[in-house]
């Protein structure tokens, strides 16, 4: 049995995207509940209809949500063993629960509140471990330090340039400007980019995503039931989580064979996803690619077959990922670099909006939208959504 086209996303709800710390004094659970209530309302459902939860990062408390929101019955509650890499994977889990008949109305929710620990210094919050000793001594404190190592090698082997990273940052900013949801609204020029401080050379300030507080929830139910609900159904054509050992525990073991080191880790997920959907890269009309760091957008464009390995830099330099005139508009809301960073749920939300035809920067004639969950340790994940 395949889960392809058996289920649909029927509701989406979000809090505003707050700059780090600005969501206080609201609590994290409060933000999550607000997103869930908005999502079921968007779907034309009642919160009591929810009978399942799927997450992809720790910190969520199903019984708390049931008690707080008055959800009477639970048939499914599970977490993908991932961080941002699992965002689309949680949608896959929800789709599996619904397609199998285990549950009928499953909510996927993700959220951040960075009052206690900045994500930029995420690994400094890890307890010391025997395995961690092999990277911790070197001062790889934040994810940006590790992704800088990947970026440097991609530049060395393929000739990728900082100008290519800059184009991604500038394209995302251009997409964010005017979008009422987006945190960043000021234009970004090439001069601005090169004037910015290097944080982990070759990465500068603008290569890093935002640090955002907020929560986003989506509602998954069967494709058949979706047709009778309030919104245009957004059918889950394919959903995948996983990867190959060559990428495995890439962060921060960093011992991936070169053919994996030069990727985003997504090649296997891409292949399986296209196979499940019965589609090819040429069928994708817009891609919402997990953009915690600009070089990982280039590597995903290569891994998902929009260009060949090593050609991602030239591909973005051609203007391909721009909403204005691009052949594959990427992160049309401004992405995590310029709109908001909710661990990949922003990408699920924007892919849904593009299929519904309600996006702020709506791509014309969209049949299929790709959304990915972050280059990180396995599992990585992605979905293809369509009408």
């Amino acid at each position, binding site marked *: 049995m395949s889960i392809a086209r058996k289920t649909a996303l029927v509701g989406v709800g979000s809090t505003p995207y707050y700059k780090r710390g600005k969501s206080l004094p609201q609590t994290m659970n409060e933000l999550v509940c607000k997103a869930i209530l908005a999502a079921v309302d968007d779907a034309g459902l009642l919160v009591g209809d929810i009978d399942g939860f799927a997450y992809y990062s720790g910190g969520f408390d199903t019984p708390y949500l049931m008690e707080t929101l008055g959800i009477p019955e639970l048939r499914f509650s599970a977490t993908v063993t991932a961080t941002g890499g699992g965002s689309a994977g949680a949608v896959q889990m929800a789709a599996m629960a619904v397609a199998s008949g285990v549950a009928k109305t499953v909510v996927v929710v993700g959220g951040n509140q960075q009052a206690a620990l900045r994500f930029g210094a995420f690994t400094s919050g890890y307890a010391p471990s*025997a395995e*961690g*000793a*092999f990277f*911790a*001594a070197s001062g790889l404190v934040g994810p940006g330090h590790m992704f800088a*190592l990947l970026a440097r090698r991609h530049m060395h082997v393929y000739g990728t340039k900082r100008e290519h990273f800059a184009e991604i940052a500038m394209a995302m900013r251009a997409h964010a400007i005017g979008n009422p949801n987006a945190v960043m609204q000021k234009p970004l020029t090439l001069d601005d980019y090169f004037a910015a401080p*290097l944080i982990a*050379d070759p990465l500068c300030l603008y290569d890093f995503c935002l640090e955002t507080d907020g929560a986003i929830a989506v509602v998954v139910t069967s494709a058949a039931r979706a047709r009778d609900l309030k919104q245009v159904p957004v059918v889950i054509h394919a959903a995948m989580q996983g990867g190959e050992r060559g990428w495995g525990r890439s962060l921060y073991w*960093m011992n991936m064979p070169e053919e994996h080191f030069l990727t985003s880790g997504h090649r296997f997920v891409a292949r399986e996803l296209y196979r499940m959907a019965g589609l090819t890269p040429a069928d994708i009309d817009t891609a919402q690619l997990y953009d915690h760091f600009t070089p990982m957008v280039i590597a995903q464009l290569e891994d998902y077959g929009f260009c060949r390995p090593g050609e991602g830099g030239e591909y973005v330099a051609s203007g391909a990922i721009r909403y204005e005139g691009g052949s594959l508009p990427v992160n049309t809301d401004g992405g995590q670099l310029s709109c908001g960073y909710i661990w990949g749920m922003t990408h699920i939300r924007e892919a849904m909006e593009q299929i519904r035809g309600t996006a702020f920067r709506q791509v014309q004639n969209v049949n299929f939208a790709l959304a990915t969950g972050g280059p990180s340790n396995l599992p990585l994940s992605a979905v293809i959504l369509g009408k």
Partner: protein
Amino acid sequence: MTSDTAKVPAEEIFELITDQWTGPYWDAARRHVLTVPKCASCGKFRMPPTPFCPHCLSQEIEWPELSGGGTIYSYTVVTRAIIPQMETTLPYVPALVELPDAPGVRLVTNIVDVPVSEIKVGQAVKVRWHDRRDGVTVPCFTF
């Protein structure tokens, strides 16, 4: 900044924890001997040290003494402190170093005591031991 000398990162950001699989690496480091685990059954190297060889699933391990020479595979120059403990040791240079006498593995380490502007991918480096105040020794690399 780039004319600066690459420093050893602050000792405060790292506390050594070992187990029976990783301990021999750090014991050797204390004696200023560079070693990485080699499967005693199929001869393949692996890092970090794990309880099974992923190639043949053997648990037999050898710890050959290495020359201490290596090649820079990739590196980053950290010039901004994101936690306060980093402030006193900027810039520092986390790097991946490949070891010619242990093919297939890389160390996640630091390039130290050289001008940051002279660091390049492909540069030959040799081990430079950093003896910490807490008795732990960490391998770094220099030209």
